[in-house]
């Protein structure tokens, strides 16, 4: 039984997909730029924090073909990333969607419950609002990581003219390290996000494109873990409560 609700505002849907394009091009061109000098150490120094010092990123993961080309893409697409991010953050602030994401007391406990559920330690899907506690943390963390990426990016772009931004990250070398590391963390979260969408709640793809979400198919009602109860309800407490009595 479909129980359709309009869940995702068109501005959130638009900025989500624009962000996919912007982040893919920024990460790809950024990795191409990184490959021109795939290390954080200054000449003659070492950088023990990076175990892969000196190892370039595989070419197939990069974008822009060469250093100059990647720089042009990076410095053009950064405006799309920033403008799109500001539109998203401005919208969720004014429209109230930030309330679905902001951390609340109990989120840590709920996150542990979700992890227990995914690890089969707990049988029933924990009760959740629009997002479960793990999603909330991820969607709250992503804009914060993005802000760190943008600031450290400015620090690398203008280390003299905007040297006070560079100083936030100690110096140019550390700004470069923060910029790169924050990108890796953001991509890892994004990869887990995509995996969970397809393996737990593919119905969210509908709400992120058309805005409509079938509440009867929510992961909580299906008692859904990755690849479990993808198409039908499991015997969650919520599902049992809703099931007609014989």
């Amino acid at each position, binding site marked *: 039984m479909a129980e359709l609700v309009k869940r995702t505002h068109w501005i959130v849907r638009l900025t989500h997909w624009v962000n996919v*394009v912007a982040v893919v091009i920024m990460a790809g061109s950024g990795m191409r730029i990184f490959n021109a000098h795939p290390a954080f150490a200054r000449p003659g120094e070492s950088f023990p924090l990076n175990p892969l010092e000196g190892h370039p990123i595989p070419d197939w993961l990069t974008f822009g073909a060469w250093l*100059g080309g990647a720089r042009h893409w990076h410095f053009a697409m950064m405006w799309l990333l920033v403008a799109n991010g500001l539109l998203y953050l401005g919208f969720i602030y004014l429209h109230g969607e930030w309330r679905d994401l902001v951390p609340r007391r109990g989120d840590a406990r709920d996150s542990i419950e979700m992890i227990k559920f995914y690890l089969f330690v707990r049988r029933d899907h924990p009760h959740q609002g629009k997002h479960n506690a793990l999603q909330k943390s991820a969607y709250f963390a992503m804009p914060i990581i993005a802000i760190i990426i943008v600031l450290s990016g400015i620090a690398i772009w203008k280390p003299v003219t*905007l040297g006070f931004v560079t100083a936030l990250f100690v110096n140019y070398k550390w700004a470069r390290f923060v910029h790169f590391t924050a990108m890796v963390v953001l991509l890892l979260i994004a990869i887990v996000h995509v995996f969970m969408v397809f393996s737990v709640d593919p119905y969210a793809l509908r709400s992120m494109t058309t805005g409509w979400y079938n509440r009867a198919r929510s992961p909580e009602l299906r008692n859904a873990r990755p690849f479990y109860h993808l198409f039908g309800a499991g015997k969650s407490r919520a599902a049992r409560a809703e099931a007609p009595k014989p």
Partner: protein
Amino acid sequence: MIIDRRRFLTLSAASVSSAFLAACEANPKSAAKLLAFAEAKNQVLEESIFRHDRMDRVPASAKLAGKDFPKYYISKKVPTWDPSVRGVWRLEVSGAVRTPLSLTLDDLMKLPHITQKVDHFCVEGWNARATWTGVRMSDIARVAGMTADAHYVDFQSFDEDYHESWDMDSVMHPQTLIAYGMDGHLLGAAHGAPARLHSPIKLGYKCTKYLTKIVFLPQQNGGYWSDQGYEWYGGT
């Protein structure tokens, strides 16, 4: 390494796959236009935030790159000025100036000089510290009597046809030097002897080594790497 703008866009398409990229592959010219537009707008912004009182500050305790300071030139061998073949080295200052100059190294060293410990920012992403001794470009502009129609300066070299032109605001920054000394010694052959341009406010490729000519111009004159697709402005 030498790839023109059209070619790098075509090559871009070979990398990551995405719907957006497919569109670019179908129409690379529109992507080139977009990137050229962004570069022009970025340059306007970069020029507008540029300040002569924003300095590169390296802590006094910072380690110098010393012998590890990367060496770079486009000639097959280290370019060296052989006086027995080419006569005495001179730095010609010409173009939109009232008094063209022809300076020997001694003449150059007699001008007011400073020593500064600054970063060298390479387009590749690394930075290296060195102590540079030389004459401020603003002093050379003053001695030569730069005229009102001088808006750019082209820095030319004897490293084949290597040159890069700069905007006047960057030329006049107090950390922009014609350097003849590095880390307390005369500049070595690998680092641009007898004299080179150096400034922390531009990426390394803008800082012409093995200088021969400083030409004040009403128009910009591109540059060795700028003409191959790197940003002409190249500011930090």
